[in-house]
């Protein structure tokens, strides 16, 4: 039960700024995910919140209290490390109860709390084992159990699933989301995997080069990316970008000429745009549809058949575009293909990389993870 506030946080590593003034507010019981490419500073930011890295400038507040100078243990947080960081010579039970032992909690009480956490995570049969005798997924659960036992005000996760295989990762993702509902705690989660971010977060913080690019709900980031970086980072496969020319800006939206000569009206705000100016049009692969009358045309270079869907890599003049079409697409390599798209699905970016504001807000942009799961409280997923 806690809120977290970052005010203009800066981290300096011997002259290089790796975090360049981050502001963030995390509400009570929120699941916030920091996501970004390697080296964007997301782990550093988490470690600063944990107290494992000092803060060069700015304030970190937990429940309104400034905690910059408070040691990591006294902040009342618990962290799950990427490598799990279990104590190798202790049993699972001792691993989970270590913080309580240090705090001077009696042996019976310790055992009771460890058992309680072990029950939540189905670790009871493993309590006497040492970490070496556990599988990756089990170690992961012990690391989470160790955090639960501390009953922290905020849980911190540093890429906890990246050492697991794909199937286990999906399972743990669901388990973590369930745990969040069950514990009703504030959680901050770092990952480079945008799927983890999209599926688990109430709120995603997209970082790049130590700067926050955008903060918002998963659907908001997907439908209304603030700039080209966020647009390209969220969503898989990546959003396609192509250079277009403004031909008309009267009336609703902006009319642009597409590569290949087609014209399209995109419903975005058009403040001070000159006709003839170049913009970048962004369209997600899943929003491109095969259409014999469509405005975009190109030659298929590569086909990836995934069964349920087919990814077509299409050369359109200078740009290569990916289109995600349905699984029964019969196209072959070197075929000519025409595509169309709903203009409301397209994004326009200015020369500075910022998106032109959409005229209509997507109806799902303000849906939160909680709204996807109200029924899970009664059933055991």
């Amino acid at each position, binding site marked *: 039960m806690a809120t977290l506030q970052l005010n203009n946080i800066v981290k300096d590593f011997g002259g290089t700024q790796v975090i360049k003034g981050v502001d963030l507010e995390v509400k009570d019981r929120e699941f916030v995910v920091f996501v970004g490419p390697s080296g964007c500073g997301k782990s550093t930011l988490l470690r600063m919140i*944990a*107290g*494992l890295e000092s803060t060069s400038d700015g304030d970190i507040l937990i429940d309104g209290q400034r905690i910059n100078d408070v*040691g*990591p*243990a006294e902040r009342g*947080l*618990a*962290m799950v*490390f*990427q*490598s799990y*960081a*279990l*104590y*190798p*010579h202790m049993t699972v039970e001792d691993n989970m109860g*270590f*913080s309580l032992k*240090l*705090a001077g909690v009696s042996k019976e009480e310790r055992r009771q709390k460890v058992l309680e956490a072990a029950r939540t995570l189905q670790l009871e049969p493993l309590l006497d084992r*040492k970490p*070496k005798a556990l599988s990756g997924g089990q170690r992961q659960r012990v690391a989470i159990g*160790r955090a639960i036992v*501390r009953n922290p005000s905020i849980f911190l996760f540093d890429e906890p699933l990246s050492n697991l295989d794909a199937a286990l990762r999906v399972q743990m993702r669901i388990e973590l989301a369930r745990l969040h509902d069950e514990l009703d705690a504030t959680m901050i989660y770092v990952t480079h995997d945008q799927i983890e971010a999209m599926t688990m977060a109430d709120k995603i913080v997209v970082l790049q080069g130590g700067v926050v690019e955008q903060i918002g709900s998963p659907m908001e980031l997907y439908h209304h990316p603030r700039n080209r970086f966020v647009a390209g980072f969220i969503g898989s496969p990546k959003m396609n970008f192509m250079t277009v020319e403004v031909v008309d800006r009267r009336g609703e939206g902006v009319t642009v000429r597409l590569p290949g000569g087609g014209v399209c009206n995109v419903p975005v705000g058009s403040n001070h745009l000159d006709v003839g100016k170049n913009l970048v049009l962004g369209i997600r692969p899943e929003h491109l549809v095969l259409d014999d009358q469509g405005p975009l045309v190109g030659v298929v270079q590569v086909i990836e058949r995934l069964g349920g869907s087919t990814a077509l890599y299409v050369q359109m003049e200078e740009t290569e575009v990916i289109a995600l079409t349905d699984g029964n697409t019969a196209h072959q390599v070197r075929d000519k293909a025409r595509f169309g798209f709903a203009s409301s699905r397209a994004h326009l970016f200015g020369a500075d990389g910022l998106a032109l504001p959409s005229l209509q807000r997507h109806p799902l942009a303000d849906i939160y993870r909680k709204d996807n799961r109200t029924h899970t409280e009664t059933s055991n997923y």
Partner: protein
Amino acid sequence: MMSPALFLLALITLVPFFSIIWMSFNDVSLMGGLAFEFSGLDNWQRVFTDPDIRSSWLISLVYFLATVGLEMVIGTVMALLVYSLTRGSNIIISLLLIPMFIAPVIVGLLGRFMLDPSHGLYAWMLNESGLFDGNILGSVGSAMVAVILMDVWEWTPLVALIVLAGLTSVPEDVLEAAEMDGARYGQKLLYIILPSISNILLVALLIRAMDAIRFFAIIFITTNGGPADSTKIIPIRLYDIAFRFFDLGYAAAVGITMLVFSIMVATAFTKLLKRQEKAS
């Protein structure tokens, strides 16, 4: 294929080994040519009844416990201090290792020079400060302390080096996890660091223990077992028996007991190591 090598090995190890066993059952004399005279278990009976041998073993034990104990403790502390340095640790390590590279004989000579009652720097300092006046290497008690400290000075860096190597293998994030769990430095040391490096501590202990049993040079140069046999550890006693009294058969028996003792210590350590590995 292997036989020439094995033959060489036999020549340089097995032949001396068996001849020393044979020697221990003989009265060996060098006067007028080498002469063996079978004496049965006489030498062995003396090994187990000679009060001089017993006192030498006792002195060896004290010497062993004091040197190895101090070296382990100081070496571990030194390693922890160096490990906690954020910069300059390379140059500090180089400086710390210097004593290890000095030949024990030279260490003994240095010690004798520094402790000389007429012109030694340490002797003068101890005298001036009123801590000790008199001949340090010439008095019972102080001589033992002096030779122990010389050994500690020379070999602590080796222990520090081994422990330092062990410390770098303690994962950083495990220490951070302990920090998050509320462990202070002492608790991290007790619950995380020391258990993690216990294997390497055992290895360091084994190396030093094997050395200490056959330790010779420093005492030979400084006190040669004196005064009044107070520093006569078993290897020095062996040297006396063999090369001062030329009682070679008896010396062989004493030498074999030393060998057996070394093997027992080494076996005990390897058993411990194996048990530790199994436990973790």
